[in-house]
């Protein structure tokens, strides 16, 4: 199952993902007309500041089991079986506020949706775009690679491989007498060189 993976250490806080998210969920789907729609489309990804004033992108993790799905009294929140994405059916939502109470990451907001009806609002992993074969809008616009769209396990495997390569390079460097601990930057350069071959 592919999900949007967040790398907070890479985020620079440009908020482009928020704008792209709003546009992708607007009625006209265009950045030029979306800000002038009657019911403004609201972003579903939130950038907060940590105590160290660093940006932290926060969005729905599509947990399994999902606490919001469990606490939803109208079963408006459900899991799409095919992709594992947790979705909200605004028609069934009665705006009771139970899901915000249950969400351990604080990503659910309440906004006017259709016919002046307020409903819960959260990331749907751009399910409409995915059906057209596109990747989620926030991932598409992220310039620094803080948002990735991939399998969790694949992401972790890659990270493990990189770490293993770095360790290997370090040991090899030591054998070649290049000082005991060359800097991490030179390791990374070596790694890049190795990948390029």
């Amino acid at each position: 199952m592919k999900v949007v993976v967040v790398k907070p250490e890479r985020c620079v806080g440009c908020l482009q993902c928020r704008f792209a998210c709003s546009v992708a969920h607007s009625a006209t789907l265009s950045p030029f007309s979306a800000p002038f729609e009657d019911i403004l489309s609201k972003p579903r990804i939130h950038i907060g500041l940590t105590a160290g004033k660093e940006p932290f992108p926060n969005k729905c993790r599509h947990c399994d089991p999902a606490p919001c799905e469990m606490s939803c009294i109208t079963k408006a929140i459900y899991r799409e079986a095919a992709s594992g994405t947790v979705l909200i059916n605004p028609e069934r939502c009665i705006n009771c506020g139970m899901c915000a109470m249950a969400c351990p990451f604080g990503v659910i907001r309440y906004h006017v949706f259709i016919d002046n009806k307020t409903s819960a609002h959260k990331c749907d992993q751009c399910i409409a775009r995915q059906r057209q074969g596109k990747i989620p809008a926030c991932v598409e616009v992220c310039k620094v690679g803080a948002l990735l769209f991939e399998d969790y396990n694949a992401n972790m495997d890659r990270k493990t491989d990189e770490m293993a390569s770095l360790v290997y390079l370090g040991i090899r460097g030591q054998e070649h007498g290049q000082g005991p601990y060359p800097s991490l930057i030179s390791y990374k350069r070596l790694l890049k060189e190795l990948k390029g071959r």
Partner: protein
Amino acid sequence: MDYLIIGMSAAGLSCMDTLLRVSPDSRITVVSGEKFPPYCRCLLTYCLSGKLREEQMIIRDPSSLPPNVRLIAGNDVVGLETSGRKALLSSGEEIRYDRLLIATGAHAVKPGYADEQKRAFTLRGIDDARKMAPFVKGKAAVLGGGFVGIKTALGLLERRVKVTMIISSAYPLSMVLDAGTGRFVERDLKELGLQILTEEDITGLDMKDDAVRLSLKSGRELEADAAVIGKGVAPRVSLAKKAGIRIDLGITVNEYLETSSEGIYAAGDCCEAIDIARKRPWINAVWPVAVEQGYFAALNMAGIPSVYPGSIGVNSLKTPLFHLISGGILKETEGVTIFEDYVPSTNQMRKLAVRENVPVGMAFYNSPEDAGVVINLIKKGAPLAVHPEKIVKREASVMDVLKPL
């Protein structure tokens, strides 16, 4: 494996769904006393207000159930034979099981004066709402200042019924909130148009022509079309008691939600599992907790040992004027400090009760965004990584709070 689930509400349904996920080829029998398809009783007040139709309360279509699930509606389990692993239905049928879940739920507490002939109703099932609806026309009295009482009152208010709330304590929601927050709720409820009488109680009911006359403790008299009683719920444990299962107030369970009898599990409003904030067995009769317990009971029933981490009492109250989310116990007792922050311009208030750096209770008023984060911290029962003052003043983000966990 043959599974039997008694009760088809929050815990029963959640258990059935989880069992279908973790052991899809087992046979599941669900026995429910209600003839109506599975519905959510939290929506009754919305139904009463006219916001929802009856069929919109249905959360599961019985015709969509897979073939290995057998639903027996309108039948009660009258007896359990724990040694032979058999259950006897009111229709006379006998059902054998390997694992049993008791999710019989709770019934509304009826004080001595409650009498449907005198138009004093409780609101628990769909039948109650059907019985009550035709009587309420212009004036109603709601007894009890809990979440159910307030939601019922607001539901009736939406039908342009003049509602008087009679609360025996000094402020509404006195079971979970401290006085300060309770006064806030009272002020805003009054602004919405409710009439609230605190420190009052009903001493007697009299029918007079087409109205019920309530005599109150202070000597006042009140006339209404009907009185709705929201004095809490009591677990339905008579079946378990007859079968010889250990009972305290609810059904006693261990950390795997198994009762004193092997192979029998309990979940939902009838089950007395551990409360994290109180650190002792307690019944938190709310929907999300029941669903969670049903999930954990199903895992254990299917042979996947999963320790139930415990629950806290949580609830959310959304009105046109405010959105209150409360969790745990927000009470100034010994060793508990309450941190609070109030923003008058936006009418936002955040309160967090902390005992020895471990959060035990919270109430967020008009600030639903990170309420879930704080409730989750209370559920974890771990010491806070940031100063509680920072949490209530919004100076700490999700990352700071969750990083050490």
